[in-house]
Each structure stands twice: as C-alpha cells, then as structure tokens.
C-alpha cells in the first residue's frame, strides 16, 4: 500500500514536472516530437533509477558513516555525471540501436535537475529503504514520461495550428504546460 501511495503521488499528485518543477529543461526542450520524448523518457527512467541507487548507497554507506553529508550535492552530481558517461559508452558498445535512440539525450540528462533532484529527494524519504528509493525513482520517471509524452503530442498537434505570432514558441509551450499542470491539480488530495 505504501508503495502504491508513493507511485500515485509521484505520477499524478506531485508530478515531478508539473507540480515539482524538476526537469523542466528537457521537458520544454526535447518534446517537439512524441518519438523523441519517448526516447528521452526511456533515458531518464534508466539513468534516474541507477543514479538513485548509486547515490543512495553512497549516502548510506559512505557519507553518513563519515559524517560528510554536506558533500551530498557534489558527490551525487559527480556520480551522476560519471554514470551518464558510462551508460553512454556501454550502450554504444552493447546495443547500437538503443544508443541511437537514447544516445542523443544522454548528455542532456547530466544537466537535468530531475535526476539530481530525485536522488536527493529519495534519500530524504521517511524511513527509506533502498527498495523504496528505487520505487520512488521509477515512479518519478514514469511521471516525467507521462508529462513529456502528453506534452509532446500536444505540441505535435499545435504545429498544425495557427498560433498567434506573439505566442509562438516559448510562450505557447509554457502555457500548455501551465494548463496541463492546472488539469493535474484535480488529483490533489488523492494521497
């Protein structure tokens, strides 16, 4: 039950993009096509999960025992940056097609605050276990995927619309994000 609550909360109620404002850059940046946004979601799911595991372990078994939790930010970001690089290499070698699909997004993820944000939030969970952290990360990346895919499909449709000159580009995208976020307010109080 607890896990289900985490999942629903992360996907609908506190959607990482629409309610928590994490990962807005890729959300606005790589959402012009549904296909690319699916690629990005895949990459985020992948990286967010491993990054959370890695930083959880780092925090739990190195930083806390050594009393170095003020190094949280710097160590996490290092771990994430290195991980992303490593994933990139491994993918390139192991599965070129997957690399082709996700590869372009990987560098973007380093500067995606959703990954770092979730890693930090995950260690802050109440009586958090590793499992809980992982579920939290996965649920959040699904929330990210949901938001960005819906957003991309709307943008695809808007490409065919006659948006007024002044609204074209950034403003209309922000507005759509705003209305999307407004709609998601309906889930308030589910958990």
């Amino acid at each position, binding site marked *: 039950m607890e896990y289900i609550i985490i999942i629903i909360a992360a996907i609908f109620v506190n959607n990482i993009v629409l309610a928590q404002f994490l990962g807005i850059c890729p959300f606005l940046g790589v959402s012009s096509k549904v296909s690319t946004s699916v690629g990005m979601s895949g990459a985020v799911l992948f990286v967010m999960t491993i990054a959370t595991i890695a930083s959880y372990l780092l925090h739990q078994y190195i930083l806390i025992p050594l009393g170095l939790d003020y190094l949280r930010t710097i160590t996490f970001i290092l771990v994430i940056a290195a991980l992303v690089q490593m994933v990139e290499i491994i993918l390139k070698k192991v599965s070129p097609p997957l690399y082709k699909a996700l590869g372009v997004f990987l560098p973007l993820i380093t500067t995606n605050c959703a990954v770092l944000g979730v890693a930090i939030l995950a260690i802050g969970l109440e009586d958090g276990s590793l499992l809980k952290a992982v579920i939290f990360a996965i649920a959040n990346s699904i929330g990210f995927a949901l938001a960005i895919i819906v957003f991309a499909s709307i943008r695809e449709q808007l490409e065919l619309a006659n948006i007024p000159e002044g609204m074209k580009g950034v403003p209309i995208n922000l507005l759509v994000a705003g209305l999307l976020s407004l709609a998601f307010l309906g889930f308030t*109080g589910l958990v």
Partner: protein
Amino acid sequence: MRKKESTFINMVLSLMVITIVAGFSLGFVNDLTKGPKAKAKLERKISALKLVLPEFDNNPVAEKKLIKSDKVKDSIEIYTALLNNEFVGSAVVGSSNKGFSGLIKIMVGFNPDGQIQNIAVLEQKETPGLGTKMKDEKFLKQFRGKDPSSFNLKVTKDGGEVDAITGSTITSRAFGEATQLAYDEFIKNK
C-alpha cells in the same frame, strides 16, 4: 595560450588538483558553519516552543518524550518546560491527516492546568490563501486561554465552539482534531 593535452596523466592530475582544492574548501567552510548550522536548527525548534510555552529555562528539546499512539503513524512528541525546575507547561505535537490536502501537524502548548497557551503550525499542505489561514492570528486567537475540557474543539457547524475559517471548514476541523489529540495526550501524560 595552449590547452593542456588530454593525456591520461594530465586528466588525472587536473581532476585531482581540483578535487583536492574543492575538498579542502568545502571541509573548511563546513567547519566554519557547523556551529551556526546546528544552532540555527535548534533555534528553529526552540523558537516554536518559545511561541507556545510560557517562559522556561530548561532545554525541552533534550527532555523530549516520545509516546506511541495508535491514532497517528509517528509517535507523539511531548516537550516539558520547566522554570526554576518547576513544571510550567508542556508542548504537545498533535496531528491530523484529515486536512484538505492531508497531514496537518501542530504544536500545542498547555499550561499545567490544561489551558491552551498557544498553538504553532509545524507542517501543513493546505491551499495557500485558504487553508493556510489557520496560521493567522484571527483563527489562532480563539484557542488561547481555552481549556479543551470545557471548550468544545469542534467547529460550530458540528456543534462545537470553533469558528471555522471561511471556506475552510475541513482545515478547521482537522485543526480542531489535532488540538484535541494533543490535549488528550497531555492529560494522559501529565
């Protein structure tokens, strides 16, 4: 101005230098701010206590009591305040998750005779500008000096004596419930 070549040695060396410097400076700043940080943290706790309790001279945080209760998930915290080693009241953390958006956590300060000294809101997720009005003086002031044994903590709509915040009956009810809970624990653990 030529860039350094990307040789192995260069790469490791430069990163090493950077990390060492970073490590030093961070450690240093941490040492510098450790004291103030801890103080600020304690300060925050104490300031809440100061708000709800009459004057005291002990450190209630050190004398925190944790009481298991089946009504709430976490245990209930009780802080006892002493002035000149004399019991002057205690602050009880009450909570209710029937708020509009879930959990509401408040700290209620009681006089030794059970009168409410003051209430501070610790945690809440209510709608800004609406449920959050429970932090407003206008709402809080009706609790001060009231003894829950005689003062019905329910909202007027439900036959109680609390004037609900306009448009936020739910929040007001939850607030009342949390206060009631705190009072019950206070009586039990007096």
